[in-house]
């Protein structure tokens, strides 16, 4: 879905910013949208699981820059972490700008440009939320260029047309670059009508991603690669235990280590700045930090906390009266419970920042999903105005939600201020594994009752989870009260089969002693694993085929019809079989996430006792597809990331420490584990683009578990299956 249509859209004509610059032509900026209360927007998220566009709303912001060489540079408020957002947004902008793809270059908007996303990059919302605003911005800019060309060529606008970055008519033509170079005063027109989809040149094309060449040639585009003249390295001592509070440090030995410039001892952390990475890390090991902890935790303690029935419960979905059906004395209620472990982000680029604090200005270069919050935190800590803190986002070496809070920026800035030099500082891998904002463990309880005809009369889903949205700096505490439950924890937890007469979903909140937060697709992976495994269990009890059993419980509502279509297509495309043959078996599962339905069929076997996923068929309906190749890439990656979680990944707590602390020991899918066949089919049963990056993580877990059950007769209700 696109932006919330109830909100007033459009932008203020008064706020076009025109600024002549030296060497690069003219920057055209614009302020987009009204400023509805964030509270209302977030409440909208709770209802629809969509995040409306949270773009800049007050002053003019820089969006497009036209160079003399007739290239348009788009300053993008969303960050590129692999999800392909730069490519999709470039296609959308190029479409309305009437330029070729080779004429647009996308860069991360510096906070100095003013173009700061007010929320974050995440939640599979970048393309969907900018779908309307970006086209309006680009179309208005094209119209401005047309009118400017009309006056320069002394021709009526009506006789001119824009194509491939050139305005022409009556045998005359001007490039956008030439128009901009000759213009000093601009007229800001009304936004013209947006293009008819039938005339799209770029939208829907499987173009190679715009950052492909840089990424294949090894260009220095990541936060880790940032440099400034005179840069030195900082290393912060991070706790290795749960619930540790910093209580000072003995720094005397570290101060005498080779290459050390300064040991920076603050109230809340200690770090050391040295001439090189190796010297900083060596000196860090000599700092004797003191930590206080209240309790020694073990995995068993955490598992005992995550239980349905404990903590605070909120009903998140209710239809009919499940209690009346499920609590009848004679009712033969079917119950099953499912479990998921603590999951790590394990993105390969560690968190880190290059910070340079000068007299009245701070520059930070880093991989972050939250430019706005990072800037606030640094400004607050250094006692500066936010405008004095310039965040230059870089390409992210993986996001997955790990960079939705980057307090490491503040620490690097404090160290830079202490030594008066640019300081780069980042986590070691052990620190990443022990200080992650983990995917919370879950416990799901499902209860259902079948009618004599084998239809579901009532279905209840109870979810116990650590926090996802709650406790995140992205959402102020007051908004948590407004929303009333952790929408991240229960994402994917609602019953999607609306033909069931009585259903209910309940979210139980547990606060764990370590940080849990956003992890790609949030609760979707674990909650769909539970619901869709249970649907198979019910289908078996009903003596029905799992595919037709699912379809029987869908209505003719638009959402249910879209879901039915992906289910039917996936079963047909995979040639779904309900019985094992030749040592292989198939499993089926489907889910709807943020209005995008997805169905998957996994085909598995056991080879020397090891589970092998041979093929996954994936049908996704994200609505209008901007770039089919990138949507496929997201599906392929999500499927294999899901296989990794379902088969292998698990963090444990031993004597207050989170383990493992290294790849390998934290087992993940490798090339050998990837299915040799992944077939992705895209349906487009909506005229606007919807979520892509997370929805295909929904069905994969249950699809595998259901396949294993058919193959072996063993029902797995806990992942990792191989753990």
């Amino acid at each position, binding site marked *: 879905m696109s932006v919330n249509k109830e909100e007033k859209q459009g932008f203020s004509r008064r706020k076009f910013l025109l600024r002549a610059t030296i060497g690069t032509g003219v920057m055209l900026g614009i302020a987009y949208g009204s400023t509805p209360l964030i509270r209302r927007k977030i409440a909208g998220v709770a209802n629809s699981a969509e995040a409306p566009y949270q773009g800049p709303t007050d002053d003019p912001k820089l969006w497009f820059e036209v160079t003399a060489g007739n290239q348009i540079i788009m300053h993008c408020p969303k960050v590129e972490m692999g999800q392909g957002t730069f490519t999709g947004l470039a296609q959308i902008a190029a479409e309305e700008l009437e330029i070729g793809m080779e004429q647009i270059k996308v860069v991360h908007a510096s906070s100095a440009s003013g173009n700061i996303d007010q929320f974050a990059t995440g939640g599979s919302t970048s393309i969907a939320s900018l779908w309307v605003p970006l086209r309006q911005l680009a179309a208005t800019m094209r119209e401005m260029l047309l009118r400017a060309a009309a006056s320069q060529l002394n021709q009526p606008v009506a006789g001119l047309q824009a194509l491939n970055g050139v305005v022409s008519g009556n045998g005359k033509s001007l490039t956008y670059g030439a128009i901009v170079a000759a213009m000093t005063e601009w007229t800001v027109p009304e936004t013209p009508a947006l293009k008819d989809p039938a005339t799209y040149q770029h939208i829907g094309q499987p173009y190679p991603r715009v950052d492909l060449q840089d990424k*294949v040639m090894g260009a220095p585009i990541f936060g880790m690669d940032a440099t400034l003249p005179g840069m030195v390295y900082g290393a912060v001592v991070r706790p290795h235990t749960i619930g540790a509070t910093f209580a000072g440090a003995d720094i005397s030995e570290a101060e005498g280590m080779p290459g050390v410039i300064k040991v920076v001892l603050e109230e809340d952390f200690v770090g050391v700045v040295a001439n090189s990475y190796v010297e900083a890390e060596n000196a860090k090991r000599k700092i004797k930090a003191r930590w206080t902890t209240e309790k020694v935790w073990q995995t068993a303690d955490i598992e005992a906390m995550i239980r349905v029935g404990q903590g605070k419960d909120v009903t998140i979905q209710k239809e009919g009266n499940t209690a009346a059906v499920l609590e009848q004395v004679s009712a033969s209620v079917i119950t099953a419970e499912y479990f998921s472990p603590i999951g790590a982000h394990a*993105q*390969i680029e560690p968190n880190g920042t290059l910070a340079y604090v000068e007299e009245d200005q701070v520059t930070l270069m880093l991989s972050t999903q939250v430019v706005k919050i990072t800037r606030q935190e640094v400004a607050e800590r250094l006692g500066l105005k936010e405008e004095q803190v310039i965040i230059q986002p870089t390409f992210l070496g993986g996001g997955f939600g790990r960079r939705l809070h980057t307090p490491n920026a503040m620490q690097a800035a404090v160290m830079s201020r202490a030594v008066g030099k640019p300081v780069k500082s980042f986590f070691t891998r052990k620190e990443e594994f022990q200080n992650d904002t983990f995917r919370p463990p879950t416990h799901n309880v499902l209860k259902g009752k079948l009618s004599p005809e084998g239809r579901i009369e009532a279905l209840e889903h109870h979810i116990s989870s650590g926090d996802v949205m709650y406790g995140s700096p992205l959402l102020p505490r007051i908004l948590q009260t407004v929303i009333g439950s952790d929408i991240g924890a229960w994402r994917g937890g609602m019953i999607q089969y609306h033909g069931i007469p009585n259903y209910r979903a309940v979210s139980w909140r547990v606060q764990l002693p370590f940080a849990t937060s956003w992890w790609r697709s949030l609760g979707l992976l674990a909650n769909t694993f539970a619901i869709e495994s249970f649907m198979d269990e019910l289908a078996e009890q009903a003596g029905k085929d799992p595919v037709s059993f699912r379809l029987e419980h869908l209505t003719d509502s638009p959402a249910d019809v879209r879901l039915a279509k992906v289910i039917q297509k996936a079963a047909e495309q995979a040639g779904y079989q309900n019985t094992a043959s030749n040592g292989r078996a198939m499993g089926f599962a489907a889910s709807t996430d943020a209005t995008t339905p997805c169905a998957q069929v996994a085909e598995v076997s056991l080879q020397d006792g090891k589970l092998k996923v041979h093929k996954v068929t994936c049908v996704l309906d994200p609505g209008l597809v901007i770039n089919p190749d990138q949507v496929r890439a997201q599906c392929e*990656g999500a499927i294999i990331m899901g296989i990794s979680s379902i088969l292998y990944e698990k963090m444990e707590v031993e004597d207050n420490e989170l383990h493992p602390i290294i790849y390998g020991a934290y087992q*993940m*899918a490798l090339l050998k584990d990837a299915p040799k066949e992944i077939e992705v089919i895209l349906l487009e049963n909506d005229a606007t683009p919807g979520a892509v990056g997370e929805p295909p993580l929904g069905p994969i877990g249950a699809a595998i578990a259901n396949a294993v059950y058919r193959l072996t007769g063993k029902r797995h209700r806990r992942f990792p299956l191989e753990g």
Partner: protein
Amino acid sequence: MPTTFILNGRPVTVQADPNSPLLWAIRDELNLKGTKFGCGKAACGACTLHVDGKAVRSCSYAVKFAEGKSITTIEGLSQEGKIHPVQQAWMEEIVPQCGYCQPGFMMATAAMLAEIPDPTDEDIDRNIVNVCRCATYYRMRKAIHRAAEISNTPS
């Protein structure tokens, strides 16, 4: 004590501690950022480069061992303006997502193809054991086979 070696075809001398990891000398002293830091324990492969044509995880390889050797990084994989078959295949298959781990995978692949010009799926499974969190493995396998095909096609 300075250490001298050939980097991407040119002799270089570095001042880094001979016992420190080669990765940091390449990234910071020689300012080539394509070789990545991922784990520092030779567990993820993001720092893979070639030492005399063999794939080496440079986060755990001391500078002193590079003395007199020939080192190739992702920046030197394509030579004389001609794109290396592995990089060409990676472009054709549009493998990267976030892209951070990809130089390590391409270097590991190039080293494997030098030994096994036409690898089977089993060869690939056994030899390419780096970690990609975006899980671009499906396209990687296709790209590896494609790279072998390009390499084995007379031009």
